[in-house]
């Protein structure tokens, strides 16, 4: 199957073809389709089924043109979306061929005979290719006097996608996307002939993580999003290019706002990153911005322990008072923009005079800090495109970085590339990638990593943040990279983590990846910041800060339940200044609360897992809200140690001017593996990751999206199921001294010693329920 991409130039020299379209000569790479060559000349041939990222279908026949090659004319018009240009080809589109023009008008008339023509009540009206092209390439009046085909409508094919079969033109974009791009063939063309229709199997909804793309590429109003239905007219929306805040995939997005409210978000185009796709979380999880528990005004805890709304000057004064002259630190969270992270980084070093700063609001390790300071992360999406082999280590791309998944899947679909997955079980994503599974018990990955062979410089190793939960894991990864010459990517879940490292929001690095231990690096930064010096005293990481006797912490967007069960209790003993957008567990214990802007309300940038930066402007104007860096700058002024970053723009400019460290970096201290925990027959080693759609706080308020989340299940092996005498669907109880979780089980291809649960899903929030997330022995019993 050949998939032709817009603007993709292969690195090898491409043969060029010259042809003539409507009298204009054009030279394009061999293999370019006629419809695409015409686009380059600015000639728009109408089309529906054609999509540059899907294999040609030739189904709608709207793009018929007249073609002759070296004087030999095709006897009938040809679909320009299926025919590559050839030397000596002469193409006549609707502009110059009356036959092509009549053919196109004829097709358009046929497409409309059964169309309900309900544009006034259709979400697509105003941005509808059918509507637009019926105007530009159709007859002014239909000659159809018969009976239109009718169907029940709309049919929910999932909780978030509605299907209107009457509007459908059967272009098969949605079904091709589902099969070719997402690998989720849950919607198909059913029946045949005039009754052919898009549909699902009645018992299995269209619960694909990528289903929203079908709504976006539907050229009519046949597929619509439940949440957006009847909400707006496209011409009433103000669109802003934006960046997705949900994960490190780095998607380009478009945010559509009406009267100060985000009504929808769409995938933007970036051939180097997300092509034209995004995941459903990125598309539909934005209601948190307008959640009822948004914090609108600064608050200070009064003598009775109650938070009281106060003015900004009062709040800043109270915060400064508590921070001044105390031993303090900063917890950034992994969701900050680069500018905000930079603000926190500078705030810690300048205003608080400490290297106690960490962005990791999750399980982490000292080995990981060392790795992040020393590893060369060189892999990119383009490397996946040309990879001979992709190795996934403690990383489930479909759940943890869904666009990375799409990129790997594309190559599996097109080139059948090899994928190896070091994991305790074959996840659905792993099965879709036909991955060779190296089954490991959580904590025992080191040996498996060390045993991987056959990698080349064309291979790509992608390691997830969860590897830090295994001592020695990252050391083994670096060794593997060293020995094989493969490219390495480290892919955290959250959108702000790569940027936070770069901004120095980690104890061992200063902005621009400068080692804190390097005096020249410290001088660099001291100079840039016009301060006398930067402390070389080693800073604490997140765990250390929480467990320390530090008196005060500045916390920006952290959920203590992401870190440990007792984090909140421990933090409650300290003076907390919280910068946050909504009421949270931190609000409960904060002395001062400073409201900040949500992503759509501010400008900034995110650095994706490749290290590529995507800038964005605010999509919603909210004068009351402001980016963290601006608040931090005011707070630093109040403390009396200014950081001089009054705006996002100034932070960006200063950070850019600092540049990246080009000196030497510390080589990583190698850790060796620790012994694997042994388990008795009724025990298992807990393993988990977060499903893409789960109880994550940024997904709050979007029930239609939540409806497509994968059901919470306990995954056990066949032999364990036999031992427990349970079948798929029976309830199983996983427990430890902290607590217990009881859920239906699923029998899967999982390591015998392991049990898997979703880390933060409905009825399965592991830190909350079990106090641990992985690499820990639990009891497993029939419920």
């Amino acid at each position, binding site marked *: 199957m050949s998939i032709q991409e817009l603007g993709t130039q292969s690195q090898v020299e491409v043969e060029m073809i010259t042809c003539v379209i409507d009298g204009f000569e054009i030279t394009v790479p061999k293999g370019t389709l006629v419809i695409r060559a015409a686009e380059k000349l600015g000639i728009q041939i109408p089309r529906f089924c054609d999509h540059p990222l899907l294999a040609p279908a030739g189904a709608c026949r709207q793009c018929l043109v007249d073609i002759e090659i070296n004087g030999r004319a095709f006897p009938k018009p040809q679909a320009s979306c299926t025919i590559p240009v050839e030397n000596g080809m002469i193409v006549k589109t609707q502009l110059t061929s009356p036959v092509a023009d009549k053919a196109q008008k004829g097709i358009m008339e046929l497409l409309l005979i059964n169309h309900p023509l309900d544009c006034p009540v259709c979400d697509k009206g105003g941005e509808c290719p059918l509507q637009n092209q019926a105007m530009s390439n159709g007859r002014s009046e239909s000659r159809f006097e018969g009976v239109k085909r009718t169907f029940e409508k709309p049919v929910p094919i999932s909780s978030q996608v509605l299907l209107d079969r009457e509007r459908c033109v059967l272009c098969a974009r949605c079904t091709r996307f589902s099969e070719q791009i997402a690998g*989720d*063939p*849950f*919607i*198909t*063309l*059913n*029946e*045949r002939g005039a009754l052919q229709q898009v*549909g*699902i*199997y*009645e*018992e*299995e909804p269209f619960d694909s993580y990528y289903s929203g793309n079908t709504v976006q590429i539907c050229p009519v109003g046949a597929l619509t999003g439940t949440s957006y239905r009847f909400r707006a007219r496209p011409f009433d929306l103000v669109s802003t290019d934006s960046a997705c805040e949900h994960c490190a995939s780095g998607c380009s997005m478009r945010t559509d706002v009406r009267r100060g409210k985000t009504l929808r978000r769409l995938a933007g185009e970036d051939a180097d990153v997300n092509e034209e796709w995004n995941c459903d979380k990125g598309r539909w999880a934005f209601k948190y911005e307008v959640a009822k528990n948004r914090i609108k005004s600064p608050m200070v805890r009064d003598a009775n322990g109650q938070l009281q709304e106060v003015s900004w000057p009062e709040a800043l004064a109270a915060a400064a008072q508590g921070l001044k002259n105390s031993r303090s630190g900063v917890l950034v969270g992994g969701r900050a923009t680069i500018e905000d992270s930079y603000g926190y980084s500078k705030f810690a070093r300048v205003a608080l005079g400490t290297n106690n700063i960490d962005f990791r609001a999750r399980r982490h390790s000292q080995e990981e800090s060392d790795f992040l300071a020393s590893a060369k992360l060189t892999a990119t999406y383009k490397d996946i495109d040309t990879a001979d082999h992709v190795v996934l280590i403690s990383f489930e791309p479909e759940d943890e970085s869904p666009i990375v998944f799409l990129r790997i899947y594309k190559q599996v679909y097109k080139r059948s590339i090899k994928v190896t997955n070091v994991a305790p079980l074959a996840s659905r994503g792993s099965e879709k990638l036909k991955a060779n599974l190296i089954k490991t018990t959580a904590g025992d990955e080191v040996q498996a990593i060390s045993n991987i062979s056959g990698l080349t410089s064309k291979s790509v190793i992608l390691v997830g943040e969860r590897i830090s939960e295994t001592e020695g894991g990252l050391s083994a990864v670096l060794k593997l990279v060293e020995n094989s010459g493969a490219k390495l990517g480290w892919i955290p879940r959250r959108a702000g983590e790569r940027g936070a490292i770069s901004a120095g929001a980690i104890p061992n690095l200063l902005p621009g990846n400068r080692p804190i231990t390097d005096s020249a690096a410290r001088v660099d930064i001291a100079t840039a910041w016009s301060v006398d010096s930067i402390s070389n005293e080693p800073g604490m990481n997140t765990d250390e800060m929480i467990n320390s006797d530090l008196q005060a912490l500045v916390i920006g967007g952290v959920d203590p339940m992401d870190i440990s069960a007792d984090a909140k209790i421990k933090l409650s003993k300290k003076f907390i200044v919280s910068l946050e957008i909504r009421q949270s567990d931190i609000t409960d214990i904060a002395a001062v609360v400073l409201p900040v802007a949500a992503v759509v309300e501010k400008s900034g940038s995110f650095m994706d897992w490749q290290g590529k930066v995507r800038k964005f402007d605010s999509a919603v104007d909210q004068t009351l809200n402001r980016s963290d860096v601006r608040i931090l700058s005011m707070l630093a002024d109040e403390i009396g140690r200014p950081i001089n970053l009054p705006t996002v723009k100034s932070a960006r400019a200063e950070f850019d001017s600092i540049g990246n460290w080009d000196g030497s970096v510390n080589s990583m201290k190698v850790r060796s593996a620790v012994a694997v925990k042994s388990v008795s027959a009724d025990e298992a080693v807990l393993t988990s990751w977060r499903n893409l759609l789960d109880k994550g706080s940024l997904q709050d308020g979007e029930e239609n999206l939540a409806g497509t989340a994968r059901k919470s299940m306990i995954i056990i092996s066949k032999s364990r199921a036999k031992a427990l005498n349970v079948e798929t669907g029976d309830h199983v109880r996983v427990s430890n001294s902290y607590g217990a979780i009881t859920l239906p089980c699923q029998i899967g291809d999982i390591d015998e010693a392991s049990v898997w649960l979703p880390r933060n899903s409905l009825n399965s929030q592991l830190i909350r329920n079990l106090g641990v997330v992985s690499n820990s022995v639990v009891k497993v019993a029939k419920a």
Partner: protein
Amino acid sequence: MAYTAEQLSVMDSIISRYPRKRSAIMPLLHYVQSIEGYVTNEGIELIGQKLELATAEVTAVSTFYTQYKSKPVGEYHVGICTNTLCAVMGGDAIFESIKEHLDIENDGVTGDGKVSVEHIECNAACDYAPVVMVNWEFYDNQTVQSVKDLVDGARAGNPPAPTRGPKSLRTWKQNSAVLAGISDGLANEGIQAGEPSLLGLKKAKGGA
């Protein structure tokens, strides 16, 4: 209903006929019909599992082909050809009178579950027009009366034998198994050719 171990192993043997297992989807759907009479959800899910396909993909295939039924048909499924030639020569009249005779509509099933009726397209027996198929066996040169007798016999459990086919008419489920490629040993029954098939040969040999 649950499929027996034997039935599941028949399915595996059907799959093993093909270089790639997805190719087995059509015989498997015929096979499901031979057991359940029509394509049930259970059948779809089972085929999906066996072939590692999404249930939607199985549905997409099963709904494309008209011989796969989404609801039960009669023990004797009567197809009356109403394509042009048969229709003109009597198929239309047969179809109308049989519907009335049985008091069912197109695709309907008699209350006793014995007979269902469907108008069908050309069945490659035009020289025997008008043609009626029962469980996809040939009933050649039919008239209104002959088809009435046919369906009455079928309802009484005593249908006449096909014109070109086995000695006695088999049920819908039994014949579905044949279509799934499972031999019923009846290939040698019945004539090798009907009169029209032999006409040219006879004329060539100088016959009348």
